[in-house]
Structures are given as C-alpha cells and as structure tokens.
C-alpha cells in the first residue's frame, strides 16, 4: 500500500473521528447537559487524537525502516560474508542485494546474495504491512481514547487550542532544527575529514588536488587538500563581482531616489528587480554562451591570452546578478534618510550632488554597508554561475583573465558523480561547506547588526 494512500486513509479516519466526537457531544447536549464547549470542538479533539499520533508514527516509521531492515538483513547474512568486512565492503554488499531484489541483476550473483535478496524482499513487505497495521491501530485507538474523555464538563476548546499551540511551537522550532541539522551534518563530516587531513594543512596549504589514487599503486596523485587557492579563487571572483555590482547598483539607486521622476522610477525599479529573479543557472549559461566568448575574443584581439573560463567572465556575470541587491538596499537606505536632512542641505544652497555625497550617503552608509555585506555573502555562496563559468583547477593568481576555482565549485565537483561517501574526497566537500557556512553566517550576522543599528537611528 502506498504511503500516499495510507495518509489519505488516516485523514479519512480523522474526519470520521470528528463526526463521532461531534455527534456524541451533541447527544450529551440533547440529553439536557450544559456543555463547556460547543460540539464541533469535541469533534476536533477526537480528530486530532486520531490523526496526529498516526501520522507521526508513519513519519518515524518511514525514517527508521530502511536502517532497521538493513541491520536485520546484515544479521541474517552468513557469518563468512560479514566477519571482518570493512564498512565500505558491507555497504557494497547491501547495495548488490538490493539491486538483485529490485530485479537489476548484473553478472551472476552468488547463492547467498540471491537468498538475502529474497529475505530482503520479504522483510520489506512485512515492514510495510506492519506499518499499515500499526498506523491504523494507532488511529483507531486515538479515536477510542479521545471519545472516552468526552463529557459535558470536558474543556474541549481549551484542549484543542492547547494542542494547536504545541503544533505551532513545534513548527517554529523546525527552523532551529534546520540550522542544527546543517551545523551537525557539516561538523560531523568535517571532523572525520580532519581526522585524515590536518586542519592546518586544509586551512593554510597551498596545493589543492583532491584526486585520491584510484588504485593503491598509483603514485601520481596522492590527493592534496590545501584549500588556500580555493579560498583565494572565491574571494577573487567575489571581488570582481563587487567591482561590477557596487558602482552600478549604488549609482542607479542614487539616480532612482534623487534624480529620476516618479514615472521612470516606477518602470526602472521593477526592471532591475527582474535581474534578482532570474535563476542563477540562467546567468551561468549566459556567462558560458555570451560573456566568456566575448571576453576571450576581445582579449585575443588585444593580444592577451584569455582562458575560456576566466575569473573575469564568472565574476562579471555574478556582478550583474548582484546589482539589484546593492541597488535595492541602497535605495531603501537613501530613502530612509529623513526628508529634513535634504531640506537642511538644500536650504543651505547645496546642489543635489553635494546633498547626496555629503549628507545622504554618509547618513545612509550603515544601511548600504549592511546591503553590501549581504551581497558579498551572496557572492561567496553563489554556485551555479561559477560551476558553469569558472575553472576547475585551483590556481593562485591575480590575473582575472585566468581561470580560478571556488569553494562552491569544488563542493559540487567533489560530490557529483558516484563516489564512496566516506572517502577523503567527499568529506573534503563538507570541510569546504563548513568554511562556507561559517563565513556567510558571520557576514549575515554582521550585516543584520549594522542594518538594525541603522534602523534604530532613524526610528
């Protein structure tokens, strides 16, 4: 039975519970009792008791089933297969068994595997059936329990409100759980990475070539995990992006707020915001399709040698993507400067430019800085543009016409394709992810602080 169907059945049962609860409350009322809460609340109470535990059970079951079945399967394997096997070997074995069970048979599996596959199949079936039975039992038990609670004095409304309130709280805690999940998964994987590669080498090493040898006798590439060139590439491309975005964003904000008349502003502002709504994959393709060839041809015509995945192309396109961030943050910050500041400056005979440069911009600076920090964090974390348009090899260079690589590119490169999960290569991606998360988090917190303080100033 599919999970969707099970969900539907539980929901239907909950509805039945609602009707039951409501009618028994209505009966109590017609019997001449004074109810504390109106009948529908008794119905809601029963429905919640029916639906919530059952749905929760399904979720927990689905999350746990595969692990439990795997363990049972392992325990049932003949001991000569499992004894002394490495975790990698075991996961390979499990994979093969599952493939056989799903009918994807490659080569000729041995008898033990075929038996295990049959056992696996039957365990899966038993588990799914057990889930259905348990869930339905939980739902019915919930109805029975909740109905037994109903009485004229029962404060159904308060109970329902209380349950709902807890649901709301759980939902808001989910945000914290997400952050916790991010931190835990990054930290745990990074720790097991740093157990193989020293932290110091990772943070300060100058050589990045994560290809670990495929065969033990290969000596050509032993895998080097010095991430400085990767960090540098990220910073370099972000700097190029900011060099494009900062002047363009700031000057357009100044023009739109202080010079443009209302009609132009009403047209141009949404157009600029379109730039922020275009998915980054589109920018990436644009960089590869148009910008990179243009820069290469232009550079070649000047006699320069330009890499086809130059930092300039990736950074430039990223800059275009960031323009609307800078412009809308600056726009807000300049608009938020009180009109009295402008009046004060104009009344002294300042021109518009003088008012902007010497009064408005200094006053709006914290807001603009906050926006710039957020934009930098955005640039550092941006993935698709650089995956498509920046280089793959880590080079320490200050020449924008050469290719550099970034943290996000390396994460994608290390994790796409079939790789064992606990090789240093994949774990390195989590190490990079941790650095990325910490640096963007620091920038965000700093930016929010700056912006907040700025708001307080004018409120």
């Amino acid at each position, binding site marked *: 039975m*599919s999970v969707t169907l099970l969900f539907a059945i539980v929901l239907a049962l909950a509805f039945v519970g609602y009707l039951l609860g409501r009618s028994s409350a209505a009966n109590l009322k017609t019997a001449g009792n004074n109810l504390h809460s109106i009948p529908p609340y008794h119905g809601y109470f029963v429905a919640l008791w029916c639906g919530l535990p059952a749905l929760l059970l399904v979720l927990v079951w689905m*999350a746990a089933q*595969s692990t439990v079945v795997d363990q049972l399967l392992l325990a049932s394997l003949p001991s000569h297969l499992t004894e002394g096997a490495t975790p990698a070997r075991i996961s390979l074995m499990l994979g093969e068994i599952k493939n056989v069970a799903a009918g994807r048979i490659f080569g000729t599996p041995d008898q033990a595997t075929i038996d295990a596959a049959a056992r696996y199949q039957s365990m899966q079936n038993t588990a799914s059936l057990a889930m259905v039975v348990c869930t339905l039992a939980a739902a019915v038990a919930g109805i029975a329990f909740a109905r037994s609670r109903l009485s004229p004095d029962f404060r159904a409304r308060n109970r329902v*409100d209380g349950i*709902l309130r807890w649901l*709301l*709280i759980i*939902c*808001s805690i*989910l*945000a*914290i759980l*997400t952050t916790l*999940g*991010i931190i835990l*998964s990054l930290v745990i994987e990074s720790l097991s990475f740093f157990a193989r590669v020293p932290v110091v080498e990772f943070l300060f090493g100058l050589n990045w070539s994560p290809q670990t040898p495929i065969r033990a006798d290969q000596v050509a590439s032993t895998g080097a995990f010095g991430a400085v060139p990767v960090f540098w590439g990220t910073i370099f491309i972000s700097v190029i992006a900011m060099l494009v975005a900062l002047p363009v964003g*700031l*000057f*357009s904000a*100044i023009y739109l707020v202080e*010079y443009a008349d209302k009609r132009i502003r009403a047209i*141009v502002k949404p*157009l*600029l915001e379109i*730039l922020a709504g*275009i998915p*980054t*994959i589109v*920018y990436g*393709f644009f960089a590869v*399709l*148009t910008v990179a060839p243009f820069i290469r041809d232009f550079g070649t015509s000047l006699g320069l040698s330009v890499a086809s995945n130059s930092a300039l192309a990736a950074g430039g396109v990223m800059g*275009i993507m960031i*323009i609307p961030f800078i412009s809308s943050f600056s726009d807000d910050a300049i608009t938020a400067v009180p009109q009295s500041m402008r009046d004060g400056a104009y009344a002294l005979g300042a*021109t*518009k*430019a*003088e008012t*902007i*440069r010497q009064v408005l911009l200094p006053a709006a600076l914290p807001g603009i800085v906050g926006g710039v920090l*957020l934009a930098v*964090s*955005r640039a*550092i*974390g941006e*993935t*698709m543009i650089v995956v*498509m348009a920046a280089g793959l090899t880590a080079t320490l260079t200050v020449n924008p016409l050469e290719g550099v690589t970034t943290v*996000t590119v390396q*994460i*994608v490169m290390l994790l*796409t394709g079939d790789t064992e999960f606990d090789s240093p290569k994949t774990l390195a*991606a989590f190490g990079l*992810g941790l650095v990325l*998360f910490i640096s*963007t*988090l620091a920038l*965000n*917190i700093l930016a*929010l602080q700056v912006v907040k303080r700025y708001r307080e100033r004018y409120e």
Partner: protein
Amino acid sequence: MSDTATQGTGRRAWYEPDAKLKRRHAADRRLRAYGVAAIVFALAMLMTLVGTIAITAVPAVTQTVVTLNVEVPEGAVDASDPRGGSYQKILNESVARIFPEVDTPREIRELRQLFSNGGQYALRDKVVADTSLIGRTFEITFPLSDIGDQLHKGVIDRDLPREQRRVSDEQIGWYDRLVEQGRISAPLNWGLIFNADSRFPELAGLWGALVGSFYALLICFLVSFPVGIAAAVYLEEFAPKNRFTDLIEVNINNLAAVPSIVFGLLGLAVFLNFFGMPRSAPIVGGLVLSLMTLPTIIIATRAALKAVPPSIREAAIGVGASRMQTVGHHVLPLAMPGILTGTIIGLAQALGETAPLLLIGMNAFITAAPDSMFNPSTALPTQIYIWADSPERGFTSRTSAAIIVLLAFLVCMNAIAIYMRKRFERRW
C-alpha cells in the same frame, strides 16, 4: 564674516553665477550621468541576457523531420511479439531504396548519420500500436539527426570548405535529394516539451524534468506552506518575548541567507545518508527546497499578519473568541492574500534553484519521466545544467529553449503573485 563672503564677488550681483558655481553644477550633472549610465548598463545586460538566450532558442522551436515509406515484411516482425522486431534494419532498407547508389560502407555510415537514432523506436511504437501494419507499406515520420537538423536550419554553413564543417559533401547532396522529394519538413517541436531526456538532442525533451519539478514543488508546498504559516503565527501572535523566541527569529533571518548549496549538503548528509532516502528522487529535492523556502514564507506571513490591525483582534477577543479562534477566524483569512503572494514568490525561487538538487543527484541521466516522487528524476534547472554541459551542438539551442520554458513558468508565477497583491491588497 561678511567681508569673507563678499570678497571677490565685489561688483557682481549676488545672483550672477561664477566659475565655482559652474563647477558645482557640472559635478551635479556628472553624478546624474553616472546614474543614467549605471541604469543603462544594468538594463542593457538584462536585455542582452534575455535577447541572446531567446535568439539561441529559436532553432529549437521546430524540429526537422523526414517522412519515409517503410515496408514491414511479414517475416521481419512477429505479430505476437511486435516489440522484438529489428526495426533499424527495416528502416535502413527503406533508406537504401531511396539512395540505391550508396554502397560503400563509409557512405552507408555517413548516410545513416543523417537520420535520428530514434527512428527505429518511432517505427516500433507505430507497429506495436497497430499490428495490422505488418506486411504493408506505409509512411513514417521521424526526426533527422542533429547534423541533419542543423543543416536544414542553416546552422551548418554549407558554403564553408569541407574541413570546417561537420557534414560531408555527399551528406549535403543526399539531404538536398530528400528535400527535392518533399520528404523534409520542420513542424513545431512538441517533443521538446513532451519527450523525456535523451543523449540525442533531436530526441531530448523536458517532460521528465517538468514532472520532476512538479513533484518537488508539490512536496515543497505541502511542507513549507503549513509549517511556515504555523511558525509565523506562533511567533507573531502567541510567542512570549523572551530569549528563546529571539533565538528563533535570528535563526530564521540567518537561514534565509544561508547559501543554497549548504542546504544541498544538509540534504545529502541527513536525508540520503542518515535516513536512507532514495537518491535523485523528487521527494528529497522537495524536502530540501522546502527547508530553503520556509524562511521566505515565514517572513512573508509575519509581514502579512503584522499588517492586520490590532483592532480586528480586539474585536474578536471582545466577543469571547479564544486567541486561537481569533487567529483562525479573522486574522489568518485577512492575511491570506499576503501569505499566498509570499508563498508563490518563494515557490518561484525554489523552482529556479539548482545547486542543492545537484548534490542530491537530481542531475542523473534518466530517459523516462518518474512514475512517483520516489523515483529518480531530474528537475527543470538541473536538466538545463545537464544540457548546457552536453557537447552536441543541438543541445545549445535546446538549453536556451529550456531556459525560456523555465523563465515562462517564473513569469507566470510572479504575475499571479503581483495580480493577487494588487487585487486583494487592503489598506487599513
């Protein structure tokens, strides 16, 4: 003081401008010009982006097809098992009837390069659907190969010397013969939407990606919409002001700015490795996207709730409603347009998101649309990524066309959001 001011202005009346003033006004005009230049630059880039992609997409609007007369001999296909026939051979024979003079192995190979590999499947499907065709001669229409398609669309310049183009002189001659016989046409390329992915550009389509994206967005909506509203309602209407709720607030704001790829790492470590969920499946993609969309929806919902004036709440509480009833009966319905607007915008962002989907394997090469949200699949943006990385020329225009499809969805979603904001906006 007044001496300093009047010094040098001596005989000039106060309203006559001097050189200094001219410089000041010039600086003003300069700043204005910088502003105009910045805006022109940004808008020009927007136009170049949309323009080049639209122009590149044009060849993918049509697909060149060839119509052949095929004879399926009685013995070649078994009517009880029509899937088993060797259809490629049947097609080859019908091609050979048009070009009887082609006989060297090299020429035969070059000739076959003009036709799509998908021809045999088109023929097979036709025969499987109607076994009475066995033993008869009938017409079948199927795509030309990538080079044939590009030759027809003029992407390959036939006036270039042989070494610089990808088709031989003979191939051009055969193609011209097909055109003379009226066998070549270029109808609208519905396959782009309704085919699943393929290694051959002339057969590749977006259907699998569209279904995958639909499932992922559905999951994303089903999770993030109720949870987002619940979290926002709690924070805005019920939460006491204490350290814990402050922590949640800061957390949500920061979560909104965490790079999307980090969510991919989370999905990989937690959903795939810890919970053992299926790789490349839309359900995992949807869950990861919902975690990303959650902060957007919470922030939008809180703004919408804040906009409902306190007098409404006071009125409801005044007639004896509980706080939960007040929120459920009055505040939420009034805030709903704003919440929906924010949700649509959040979903639009999720639709375009690529990086986290790459990490959970939604860039797999899959030649059929997924039957359920637990099957491996691609999504629209990851499909674009796969195509953009493919070396065949035909994929360039298809990538652009896929981008146009993606942008069209985004425009529609945002248009709905804007319409709703305009239509239901309420000023208190």
